[in-house]
């Protein structure tokens, strides 16, 4: 592997994504820089997931360009993704981590120590040998986080990881995400939960129907939204 060059800033330049006649992302330009978490906010169907997929490199824009640290077509070696409904491999919790570590190029000898460290980081120490598919939703999401962190990412992308979790499980996931952010990992997370936006802070990218409406600090977005759409969204009105 070459010397680690940075994937940041992540720059989207007039990115469009269309399938058939529908525009999922429309001429979207945004720069995501190192620092506090970036929250991708917007109503359902606004393109949050697609934006994250483009940021990860899972989806190729049909128009415009994406660059990571000034480079194009960068393999996702320094990026990790946590899906809204993560796929648990049909093996134990520890084996799921071992798998992620192996594919991140960690030598076999170093893996047991890393697995133990990751399990501790997400609080799954006691469940190492449990089949991953037997975990609760919150535990599965924490394992997905550990699997993502196993890749020692520079950017951690999360697609509404707490969407179907109860408050306690949500808290656990948010704590792990905040700890990751504090350790220097750039967190980019989709959310439609304004309380979560306030708790995780940083900056907000506000999307409506695939276009960027606002990009600014989370506090400003919540307390002094600049656009009418954002104001209605923050008030809890339906934004279509």
């Amino acid at each position, binding site marked *: 592997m070459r010397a680690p060059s940075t994937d940041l800033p992540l720059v989207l330049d007039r990115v469009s994504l269309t399938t058939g006649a529908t525009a999922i992302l429309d001429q979207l330009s945004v720069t995501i820089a190192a620092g506090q978490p970036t929250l991708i906010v917007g109503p359902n169907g606004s393109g949050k997931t697609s934006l994250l997929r483009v940021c990860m490199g899972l989806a190729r824009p049909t128009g415009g360009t994406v660059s990571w640290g000034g480079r194009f077509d960068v393999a*996702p070696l320094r990026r990790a993704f946590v899906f809204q409904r993560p796929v648990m491999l*049909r093996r134990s919790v520890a084996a799921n981590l071992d798998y992620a570590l192996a594919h991140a190029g960690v030598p076999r000898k170093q893996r047991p120590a890393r697995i133990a460290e990751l399990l501790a980081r997400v609080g799954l120490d006691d469940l190492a040998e449990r089949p991953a598919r037997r975990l609760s939703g919150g535990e599965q999401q924490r394992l997905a986080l550990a699997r993502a962190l196993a890749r020692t990412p520079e950017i951690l992308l999360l697609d509404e990881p707490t969407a179907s979790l109860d408050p306690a499980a949500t808290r656990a996931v948010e704590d792990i995400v905040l700890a990751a952010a504090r350790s220097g990992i750039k967190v980019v997370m989709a959310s439609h939960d304004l309380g979560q936006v306030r708790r995780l802070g940083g900056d907000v990218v506000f999307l409506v129907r695939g276009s960027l409406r606002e990009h600014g600090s989370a506090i400003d977005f919540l307390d002094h939204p600049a656009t009418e759409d954002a104001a209605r969204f923050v008030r809890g009105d339906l934004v279509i």
Partner: protein
Amino acid sequence: MDEASAWQLIATGDPTLFAIVRLSLAVSLAAVVLGAVIGLPLGAALALLRFRGRALLLVALNAMMGLPPVVVGLATYLLLSRTGPLGNLGLLFTPTAMVIVQTVLIVPIIGALTRQTIEDLAQEYRDELAALAVGPIGRMTTLLWDARFSLLTALLAGFGRAAAEVGAVMIVGGNIEGFTRTMTTAVALETSKGDLPLALGLGLILIAIVVAINAAAWAVRAVAERQAA
């Protein structure tokens, strides 16, 4: 009367009977192992790769599940016969020839069922594996491993066809007593000779073995799934 003598043969452990049973099992299991070695990666590759003529190949593979065994037997016979392209290997009328012919018969079954299973699972896993930067080979082995319980069914289907098959092994094996006589060919022979007790005994054992192997696979799957699903 006949049934009684069939049970007698089984109960007394008739050596001829058991030699036939042993050969049948060895040939069919060897064919399943070979069929798995070829059919599993073939099915996975067909599930994951996109290339020109793929649809045609899938139709061909599915159609080959219904290949008439006697035709496969005949083709293999021509291939292995003394004047055939592989004639100098001297394989015709040996158990090896029977393993080959059964492998040809079950590779399409294992391959086609694997293709379907892996393609379904790949849908679910695609993004996650891409995000973990898993390469094409890793993707294939991961999906095969994670589909292992479903693929067991594909292997059982292959074993079922191999164990029940008569025509092909008859043609390439020759049904030589003590050498290439299997349960199915022996049943056919003894029936035509009129030795119904032996035919019936062999038939019963054949059914018992197929049931036992399926039961064992079921148990393995149930236990393993509980531990690793």
